[in-house]
């Protein structure tokens, strides 16, 4: 990292504040909802940056456990693609009926996965 502050998440905070506290006030009425959506997207990305790799590692471990295999945890840039590959494999196995006999166990695991998505996209939703 060779950039000066503000860091990426802090820049998004600034953008979200501007959209929410300023633009929303003077945007035409029919565009205000879209301004709110934009502000919210900035907040989502800022949360994702702050969460770092931890949710990806947890998901990879969970998918490997459900699939019954040890999945290699690649470093850095390779990690998101590896998680997506595992997610696709799991989705295909579920569709094929591989979990029909233990749907409860699958659903308990997927609750953790979906909760991690909500922590970034909509904090608090799972606890309301």
């Amino acid at each position, binding site marked *: 990292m060779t950039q000066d502050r503000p860091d990426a998440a802090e820049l998004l905070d600034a953008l979200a504040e501007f959209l929410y506290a300023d633009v929303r006030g003077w945007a035409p009425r*029919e565009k205000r909802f879209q301004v709110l*959506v934009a502000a919210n*997207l900035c907040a989502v990305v800022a949360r994702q940056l702050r969460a770092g790799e931890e949710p990806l590692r947890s998901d990879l471990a969970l998918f490997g456990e459900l699939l019954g295999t040890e999945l290699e945890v690649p470093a850095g840039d390779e990690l998101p693609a590896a998680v997506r590959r595992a997610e696709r494999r799991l*989705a295909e196995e*579920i569709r094929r009926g591989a*979990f029909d006999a233990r749907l409860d166990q699958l659903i308990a695991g*997927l609750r953790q996965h*979906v909760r991690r998505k909500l922590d970034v*996209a*909509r904090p608090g939703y799972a606890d309301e």
Partner: protein
Amino acid sequence: MGDSEEGALRAGVADVLAERGRAGDVELVRIPGGASRETWLVEAGGERLVLRRDPPGSESLVPQEGEARLIRLAGEHGVPAPEILHFEPADRRFGTAGILMEHVAGESVAPRLLRKPGFERARANLPAQLGEALAKIHAIPVGETGLEEPAGEPVGSAIEEWERMLDQISEPLPAVEAGLRWLRANPPPPTRTALVHGDFRLGNFIVGGDGLQAVIDWELAHLGDPVEDIGWLCIRSWRFGNDDLPVAGVGALEPFLDAYVRAGGSPPEPERLRFWEVFGNLKWAVICARQAHDHLSGVRRSHELASLGRRICEPEWDMLELIGVDA
């Protein structure tokens, strides 16, 4: 859309109105929103009308002609619905196929209905009014609808349809896949077939100070299990933050179901209702994924559509919660 195309549409609407003895200037204003239909506000001779037509270049899955017939039929059976003035087939005066209908005054935008002062009485009246309207929809004899009975086993066909919708965008969503397996394993027993509105939720109701004025957006209407409409109405996403009020974010289930039964509807068994709530959440998750995909693939670039990709997890969570509840 270019000025000339809009001019042609204006002339076409004026011509249709003149034919009905209502000559005069016509003004058109495009109303934003509506993914699969264009909506125009029409001002003609001091009167307000609404034009809904297929977007140029795309043909709708549900033909507009069938939709016009259903809205008329619903009105005849006492369902509050807009009065249909005219249906125009494709490649004629409206360009694409379109329906000209009476404008119903009121509000349909969900957050405004739920939070704005002036709608207190409407909110109090809505649960019972929605129950009554839905019972009347479900009481319409299916033979009069012109719709075909689903081929094969209806619940299985509905699940397959949404598997296909997901496969078309090839998005890996394990929670949705788990939901699909649960639906397959827990189908409700067969029931009578009814006209299902298909999108009976806040956002598709025009509401005035006293409550429900019209049920709109009939494009997803089909024949099926009537409880599908109740499950869809009650999913958390359509409560718009009023999480403890299952009926459209305005009321409890009891007054809604009381009115539904009083108006001739059969009370839904709790397990059947749960099945259709799970189904509704799953459907909404897939729709969110498809909308985000429309942005990603360039069909329609929009940050609003993009944002829906990050909302898939909301109905996924609600679906897993519903499945987790022991029957």
